[in-house]
């Protein structure tokens, strides 16, 4: 019974992550896409923990831990290295602010 409940919750979370995939496709700004990826990453952590409980695989907790740590890396990279002022002119600065 509990296993069914866990699997149902995992499936629901995965379907919910699908909405994030739609946002990645639709945009419109890079920040929207990055946040959608973070939403999917967080959902994946919950899915992994639920699967770990449902299938009785304690190793999945480690995978979830890794997901949580690496999500921070992706965001930090985005704000420092992707969202940069590539050209020092004003239009690029404006665009970076809007994007």
């Amino acid at each position, binding site marked *: 019974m509990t296993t069914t409940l866990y699997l149902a919750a995992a499936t629901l979370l995965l379907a919910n992550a699908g909405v994030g995939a739609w946002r990645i*496709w639709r945009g419109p700004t890079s920040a929207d896409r990055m946040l959608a990826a973070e939403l999917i990453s967080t959902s994946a952590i919950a899915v992994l923990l639920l699967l770990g409980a449902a299938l009785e*695989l304690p190793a999945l907790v480690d995978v979830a831990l890794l997901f949580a740590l690496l999500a921070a890396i992706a965001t930090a*990279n985005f704000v420092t290295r992707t969202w940069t002022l*590539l050209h020092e002119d004003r239009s690029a600065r404006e665009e970076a602010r809007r994007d």
Partner: protein
Amino acid sequence: MALSWAFDLLLAVGLIWLAWQTLFGHHRFAAVVSFMVFGLLMALVWVRLSAPDIALAEAAIGAGVTGALLLSALGRLPRHPEPRHLLRPWQRPLQLQALAAAGMLAVWLGWVAHRLPRPGLAREVASDLAATGVAHEVTAVLLNLRGLDTLLEVAVMLTAVALVWSLGPALRSFAPATALPGLPALTHLLHPLFLLVSAYLLWRGSHAPGGAFPAGAVLGAGGVLLLLTDSVPWMHRERYQRRLRALLAAGLMMFLAVALGGLLITGTFFAIPTPLAAPLILAIEVATALSIALMMMAFYLYGEPGR
């Protein structure tokens, strides 16, 4: 049962959609983000296939470090790309030939996979597990029974570092578009966690999913976080270059030393005597994890430091 079918179906549809977006999407940033999410879902697929070891490696390398590399590379490209170059007429037959070769290779690989013995070598590995010095089958195969494959993998990574560094001096990063006052604090708070998790994965490798590759990748990801805030200036200094290179090669050197030591003691290349197996494998794991972590950071410099 119907539920797990629904879960797997959702996973498969999501994977194909993201792969399509990565390859044929018109927006470059969306393609990179799709690739990162593809890595996450791929890790879930490995979990569903009962392969938590591969899920760990995929999560650490596929979704984490590769995503970071692609995001940084994207930041260096011009915002408005040049129009795509169309194929010239004489290139068409070449393209068709490449497509046909790839298709034939795929069919051949499928045929070989179909012909593989079932249920595999799990029973042979389990019967030899006592002599390998570790209690987890995957680590036993990776570092003892098929240690040569892992040695060559580490050699390939070292070659890749040499190739990236041969492209030119390390790149300077551009200033971020907004002020980021929280980033140094985040790094100082998070980096100890990366060290802790990496040590935990390394220790766990001897009896459960984990081991040198995920541990090295996590340590490397923590190192990338340090590079983002310029917290490792020694990597760029002239007098540390020799030490840096020695550490980069440490994993491969340790592997080779153990393999040659086996040749001297037992007469067979890479034969590890059972009483020595446990400490030797631990030594290989520590050296390889350290090397892999530094290699991840070395890729991230996008060029040779100290030049």
